[in-house]
């Protein structure tokens, strides 16, 4: 309790000293201000990037997704090409039948980047032939008020229906027109719009709408909101003229089974393809792994920079404290003569260092907010990723405690010197 009272008095006195030497205090704080500002700003921005990427990976189908794509044969097998018919629905059936840990298989038959026409308006976009399993694998859905997705019956009857991405719907129809039931033309064929895919937005982050469109999402999410989806059987029979698929999307029951599933899929496909490796298998895991490495590298290098600035800030505080003690040797002598113990002076000077670092830390936090704000603004202008960093009070609290620790460590040596001054010598000091 007594110690608390002493500390309180010392802290009050510390802030008073700061006030008495405003310019000097501000200068000594500058290192801490820069250190805290860069630390908090950088960690916040990196954190924002990480969050952004997590959502990106999720939008690509998440960590449980396996992508199979057709691939040219290696040179030495080129002459065998006719032995394999490439990716077909037979592969889909085979995988479904033999690999139970693969929950969904979504075959895709790309028609290509084509012109869509509707009542005089034109839009170019990717036309994809898909099955109902496209939705769970791509983690998409059709809101009940926005119609329905392609069904097994559509596949069976090769119907001429289509589902639009939300940005395509926006580009093709005026805002007051309901796209459902409308007929669009692709390569001279007529398709009835039966549904709209859900609009993908970056959750928890601001989305900047590209081209001033209200809906449809912007930036890197935009491609996810474009595209036209038709029954896969319609695509192969009426456009492509063969059964070949352009790729498969697979969803594994759990991300833990991913590597095992990849092995199984490869084995099965080699079997159906007469041992020809005319396909490639990829997962999002590699992408995520690469990103994790980048994230770690970022954190380490930025942490290093911030650490150095905080270290320099600490030296700045120590320097100013030593200078201040040198100026106030006589004061220290007087205080000792009237009864101050070494520990009283130790506390007094440590509190001054702490006061400098707390105040510097708080100013640093304010500066970091400014830096993040500017970086968000610049990022928005340069790359409309639509994603900005958000402030996290945990990071800010960490930044502040860092600065206090630095201040205390830097204050110890000067405070010890003040505490150990001989009162008689100190009083003689001119």
């Amino acid at each position, binding site marked *: 309790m007594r110690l608390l009272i002493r500390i309180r008095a010392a802290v009050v006195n510390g802030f008073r000293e700061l006030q*008495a030497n405003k310019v000097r205090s501000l200068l000594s704080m500058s290192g801490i201000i820069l250190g805290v500002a860069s630390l908090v700003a950088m960690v916040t921005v990196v954190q924002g990037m990480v969050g952004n990427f997590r959502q990106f990976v999720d939008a690509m189908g998440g960590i449980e997704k396996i992508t199979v794509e057709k691939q040219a044969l290696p040179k030495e097998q080129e002459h065998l090409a006719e032995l394999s018919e490439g990716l077909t629905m037979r592969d889909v059936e085979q995988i479904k039948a033999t690999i139970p840990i693969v929950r969904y298989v979504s075959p895709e038959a790309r028609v290509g980047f084509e012109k869509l026409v509707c009542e005089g308006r034109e839009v170019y976009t990717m036309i994809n032939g898909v099955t109902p399993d496209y939705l769970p694998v791509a983690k998409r859905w059709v809101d009940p008020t926005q119609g329905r997705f392609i069904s097994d019956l559509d596949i069976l009857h090769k119907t001429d229906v289509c589902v639009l991405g939300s940005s395509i719907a926006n580009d093709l129809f005026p805002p007051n027109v309901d796209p459902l039931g409308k007929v669009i033309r692709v390569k001279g064929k007529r398709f009835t719009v039966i549904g709209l895919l859900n609009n993908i937005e970056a959750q928890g982050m601001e989305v900047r709408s590209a081209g001033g469109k209200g809906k449809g999402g912007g930036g890197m999410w935009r491609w996810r909101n474009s595209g036209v989806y038709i029954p896969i059987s319609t695509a192969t029979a009426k456009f492509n003229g063969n059964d070949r698929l352009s790729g498969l999307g697979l969803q594994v029951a759990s991300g833990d089974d991913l590597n095992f599933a990849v092995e199984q899929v490869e084995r099965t496909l080699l079997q159906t393809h007469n041992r020809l490796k005319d396909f490639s298998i990829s997962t999002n895991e590699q992408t995520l792994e690469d990103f994790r490495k980048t994230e770690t590298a970022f954190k380490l290098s930025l942490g290093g920079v911030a650490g150095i600035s905080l270290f320099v800030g600490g030296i700045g505080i120590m320097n100013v404290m030593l200078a201040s003690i040198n100026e106030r040797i006589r004061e220290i002598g007087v205080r000792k003569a009237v009864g101050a113990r070494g520990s009283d002076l130790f506390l007094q000077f440590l509190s001054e260092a702490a006061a400098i670092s707390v105040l510097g830390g708080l100013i640093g936090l304010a500066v970091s907010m400014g830096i993040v704000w500017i970086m968000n603004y610049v990022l928005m202008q340069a790359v409309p990723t639509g994603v900005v960093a958000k402030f996290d009070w945990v990071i800010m609290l960490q930044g502040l405690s860092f600065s206090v620790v630095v201040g205390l460590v830097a204050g110890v040596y000067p405070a010890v010197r003040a505490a150990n001054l001989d009162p008689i010598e100190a009083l003689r000091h001119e």
Partner: protein
Amino acid sequence: MGSLATIRGLRKTYVMGDETVHALAGVDLDFDRGEYVAILGPSGSGKSTLMHILGFMDTPTEGSILFEGEEVAGLGADRRAWYRSHRVGFVFQSFNLLPRLSVLENVALPLLYREDYSESAREEAAKVALERVGMSHRLTHRPTQLSGGERQRVAIARAIVARPAIVFADEPTGNLDVRNVDRILELLGSLLAEGITVVLVTHDLSVAAKAKRVISMRSGQVQEDRRQ
């Protein structure tokens, strides 16, 4: 009156390089409560060293000091700090007021290091002490706004605020004009009535003449101990 301090065989030796300096070379003295004593001597005579040791700022190399009945010659730094904040007051030639603190805060400073004074009690005691020296009209002034005589009166208030048993005044009139010298010495003399022992440390005969007892020092020893 009663005895305040009894000093026997006090020695203080400094080693400076190869040379050994005997600042105090065996001093025996007795101080009573409420005494007005001057310690007179040229610089290097040991009078300052004696003041520092008796004022708990320094420790002797050898010898015994019985202060208020307790042996205090070998006390550690914190214990000596306790004596300085409870039983001793200092008045310096150059006043040594802290320029950033107000008159009231300067006077209350010694109580800041005592745990038995609350903030309001410190302020109250400081006001009483300033009243005692006739400076209660300047509570919020800074020391730099005061004349030399006024500053020394504030310094005396600071020396007596903790109700000490002994006040040391080290050349208290050295920086004052003639008119103020008498007033300060008179003020110091008036403290005797409260049972405070006042020790003037000076090389000035005319200042020492105000005291009731003059101890002359030379080469670390008491040359003469005369009551007048």
